[in-house]
């Protein structure tokens, strides 16, 4: 409080001082000097800014963009798509449009681009990829003149699915350049034939995965807190020599490769692994427990991996707390437990918030550990994003899922800022 008071007084004082005693030349010179300092400061952070622009802003920006911008089909079939806009969705589009599409499809088949079209339509109507591809193959061998004269008939005969309005609706949908489909899918919603929102008829997995991810992240954060707080307290209050040595045990795993640590949990938890052999050897269990490839193993391995992120901020904040506070509280008659909760705990809150936020946010987006030890139960949203990036190649949906995750985290951060205050965070 004292600091902010002096700050608020100083500028006005200086201003009055300036106007009284500085000549114009002097103040110009002073301004130049300030500008020069700013310039140097700016040049110094410039590499960082460029790095951020290339490594964060640009990729995240393109990702956000990809989630709702999809020009592929509109680029492939500009005329057909434009004409399809006027189709009333009752029955088939008119003959001229069908012929135009047949000619376009032949052109795409020759340019080897029909597969792109097939993939996009297939996304709106599973099973149509082969329809488009086989039709494209057939059209390649038909002359342009024939297509012009009789294109619609040839098309309708090439595959029976061209006779159903659904496939044309799917084409119309794929032709939209700006789409909300990916975001709707990511929320388990879809538009029905009339364009109204409804709960998705096929797989409903994404909301479930988001809530599961949040629940797991919360459990992991709490476990880290329960394990990390006493340890940080002990480290902060132990004699320097001892605490430095113990600190190495916290930092050593921190420096070890993530993969090594995850794999060692596989060795520990597997059916005939160390833990099961021990439990059976001691006689606690008679059969090996299923611990690997479960939610349990995901929580254990991630808690272990993320624990340093909790301990380090807590430790550095606890190190800065004057032990005389707690002694004063005790000497004034507070009982140890209330003294801890009323005096010590509020003082550690900055470190606690920082640690909890770090662990929570990192674990929400965690990928490799759940993928390796999670089995079926321990999957998180990041694993399904990877599925859409690598296997289904639906980058638009992956982008939408990622964006929602980003929004979710920013919302949680905002809530945290509202209720606890972001200025409370202290990393060290």
């Amino acid at each position, binding site marked *: 409080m004292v600091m902010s008071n002096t700050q608020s007084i100083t500028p006005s004082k200086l201003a009055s001082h300036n106007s009284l005693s500085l000549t114009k030349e002097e103040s110009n010179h002073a301004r130049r000097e300030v500008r020069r300092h700013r310039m140097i400061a700016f040049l110094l952070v410039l590499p960082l800014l460029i790095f951020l622009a290339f490594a964060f802003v640009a990729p995240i920006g393109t990702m956000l963009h990809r989630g709702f911008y999809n020009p592929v089909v509109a680029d492939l079939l500009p005329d057909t798509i434009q004409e399809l806009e006027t189709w009333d969705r009752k029955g088939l589009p008119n003959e001229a449009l069908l012929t135009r599409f047949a000619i376009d499809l032949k052109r795409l088949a020759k*340019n*080897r*681009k*029909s*597969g*792109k079209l*097939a*993939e996009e339509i*297939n*996304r709106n109507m*599973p*099973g*149509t*990829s*082969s329809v488009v*591809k086989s039709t494209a193959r057939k059209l390649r061998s038909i002359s342009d003149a024939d297509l012009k004269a009789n294109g619609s008939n040839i098309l309708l005969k090439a595959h029976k699915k061209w006779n159903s309005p659904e496939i044309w609706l799917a084409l119309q949908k794929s032709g939209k350049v700006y789409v909300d489909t990916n975001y709707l899918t990511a929320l388990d919603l879809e538009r029905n034939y009339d364009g109204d929102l409804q709960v998705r008829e*096929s*797989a*409903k*997995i994404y909301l*479930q*995965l988001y809530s*599961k991810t949040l629940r797991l992240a919360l459990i992991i954060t709490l476990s880290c807190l329960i394990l990390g707080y006493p340890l940080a307290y002990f480290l902060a209050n132990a004699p320097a020599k001892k605490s430095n040595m113990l600190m190495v045990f916290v930092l050593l795993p921190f420096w070890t490769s993530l993969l090594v640590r995850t794999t060692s949990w596989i060795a520990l938890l*597997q*059916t*005939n*692994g160390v833990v099961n052999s021990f439990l059976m050897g001691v006689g606690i269990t008679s059969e090996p427990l299923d611990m*690997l*490839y479960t939610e349990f193993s995901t929580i254990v391995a991630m808690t272990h991996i993320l624990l340093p992120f909790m301990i380090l901020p807590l430790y550095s904040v606890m190190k800065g707390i004057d032990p005389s506070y707690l002694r004063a509280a005790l000497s004034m008659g507070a009982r140890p437990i209330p003294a801890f909760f009323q005096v010590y705990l509020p003082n550690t809150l900055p470190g606690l918030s920082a640690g909890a936020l770090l662990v929570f946010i990192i674990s929400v987006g965690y990928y490799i550990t759940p*993928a*390796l030890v999670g*089995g*079926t139960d321990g*999957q998180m949203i990041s694993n*399904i994003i990877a*599925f859409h*990036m*690598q*296997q*289904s*190649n*639906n980058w638009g949906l992956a982008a939408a899922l990622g964006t929602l995750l980003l929004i979710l985290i920013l919302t949680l951060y905002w809530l945290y800022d509202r209720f606890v205050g972001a200025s409370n965070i202290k990393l060290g």
Partner: protein
Amino acid sequence: MKTKTLFVGALLASVFSVNAMAAELTAVSFGGAYGAAQKKHMIDPYTAKTGTKILFEDYSGGIAEIKAQVEANNVQWDVVDIEVIDLERACSEGLLEVIPRSILEPGLDGVPAEKDFIPSALANECGVGNIVWTIIYAYNDKTIGSVVPESIGDFFDLAKIPGKRAMRKRAQVNLEWALLADGVAKDKVYEVLATDEGLKRAFAKLDTIKDHIVWFDSWSQVPQLLNDGGAVMAQSANGRIFDAIKKDKKPFTMVWDAHLYDLDVWAVVKGSKKKDLAFDFISFATGTKPLAGMPDVAYGPTRASSAALIDPSVVPDLPTSHLDEGVKADGIFWADYGESLGEKFNEWLLK
């Protein structure tokens, strides 16, 4: 001063020329024992014959990386080994070059290439068949007990074979196997799977063993799972189990009933700056002799003429010797339904 400049110049020149020499062609495949066999029988002999240095890298399949390179107009890979299940899609999306059939050499016995290759090896214009591989399941003789599994039905029969089954966490193969185990005829599998009832039937069959499945992501996890008792039976690429049996002397047995076979092909990434060199390499690598080296890892060669050069003791372990018991994986079906069934499969997993 002058000598110094010269020296630095020479140094720079040598550095650059070394770089240029180091990677005249980049080839990408799946690594492991399979990659080693390809290096021994295709990459190294080609370098020895032509002097072209090849950078041989690993990837884990799929078309995401190829797509990223082609779309960003920054093609790093020239030749890729790709599964037919992905080839169909990659080719029609314009991610691969069309390979002219005229580059293919006739077999060592003089039979022209078009007749020497098995038909599916040349079915897609963007690829030239390299191996026939398959997905089987295997068990560990030591942990299986007195009753051993013999058919795909046994894989789903908890009463006959109790214990954990390891399966790859993908819709592919598992859905086909569920239908086959449920009594669907081999030639009707994909037809049934394309219907809603068929899909329900497949998931219902998978439900019967759901609590007894151990899921894995990579084929490399399988030998470990079978070995340490994590699973009594495990789905696997046949080469991995073959390698574990022959090299590591593991007590594993393969079950060939209802195996799902497929081909791997060599393909050229669209826009490769070394297209002609890439074609030349493929022409060499798919010759009779290099292909005859693939049975080192129990993958079948795609040329009839290679059969004469194969060690007869390996022949019973090749997928090409068991084609009657198997089903051909349908790339066109998976191009159609891969994404939607992938989502449904994930939904089923979460239930």
